């Protein structure tokens, strides 16, 4: 049992400390992705010719990946539901399925990118592609971070300990999903 300061157990604002911290992390991530996507939108509006570049992204891959992330979000919130009921084993299992979803997402991405790079659409071939790889790459890094965190949480959850962390890591994962919800139309649909 980790020696936790008494400070961590207080909850003056009525929101548990761990969850409050996740909200603040999300707040700072909103401006990170917001700045990035805002910059992309400005330049996209400036360069009509990017439509010809973005026509080469695969809407089906993007759509499938959106489905994958939405499903993984479902699994994450079901994990939270299980944790609420005190069922740590079930929560841990559902978290692992969520991680699997993240893995599928990354695999599809890898295949997508391989295909696009082989077709000649590299990060330097056009500024559209520079943004494409960078933004999706930064998102993918957040996916990986989420997968790692969920794995760590699933270890303690399986022992029915620290179950509140299931919800907290879930909130982070939902945010990763929301970012993709906006990336999908920006990079794949708005052609």
């Amino acid at each position, binding site marked *: 049992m980790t020696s936790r300061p008494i400070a961590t157990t207080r*909850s003056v604002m*009525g*929101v*548990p400390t*761990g969850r409050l911290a996740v*909200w*603040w992390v999300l*707040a*700072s991530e*909103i*401006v990170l992705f*917001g*700045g990035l996507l*805002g*910059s992309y*939108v*400005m330049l996209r*509006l*400036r*360069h*009509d*010719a990017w*439509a*010809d570049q973005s026509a080469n992204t695969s*809407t089906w891959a993007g*759509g499938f990946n*959106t*489905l994958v992330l*939405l*499903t993984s*979000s*479902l699994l*994450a*919130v*079901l994990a939270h*539901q299980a*944790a*609420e*009921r*005190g069922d*740590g084993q079930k929560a841990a299992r559902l978290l692992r399925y969520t991680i699997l979803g993240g893995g599928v997402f990354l695999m599809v991405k890898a295949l997508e990118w391989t295909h696009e790079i082989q077709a000649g659409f590299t990060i330097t071939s056009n500024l559209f592609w520079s943004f494409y790889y960078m933004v999706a790459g930064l998102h993918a890094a957040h996916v990986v971070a989420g997968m790692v965190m969920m794995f760590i949480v699933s270890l303690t959850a399986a022992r*029915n*300990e*620290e*179950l*509140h962390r299931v*919800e907290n890591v*879930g*909130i982070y994962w*939902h*945010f990763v*999903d*929301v970012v993709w*919800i*906006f990336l*999908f*139309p920006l990079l794949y*649909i*708005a*052609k």
Partner: protein
Amino acid sequence: MTVLTPHTRADAPHHDQTNYVAIWGVLCALLGISIVGPMFGVRLLTLVTAFGIAIVKAYIVCAYFMHLKIEKKWVAYILGFMLALMLVFFGGTAPDVLERDGQQWRKTYVEPATLGGER
């Protein structure tokens, strides 16, 4: 030993009865519409289905999966404030970065012609 922080949300029953699968179904349907939308080739329809639906999907995920709907209100205000800041950033930067041409500088970049021919 279960260290489950008690929820201080008055609304949520002790056992969460929400049908998350149904919500997921709605999200998938919306996803489907946003993919089908561009196939009509109508620009306005594409934008509405693509981005309008994205906003709706994001709202649903935030409200129901993240439970923002039953969270303390000020949490949503903090997040909303961050979003508003992004609008400020966009508003202050777009007059410069969105512009293709200017009056006081010579543009050396040649915009490639669009294959589509559209605006």
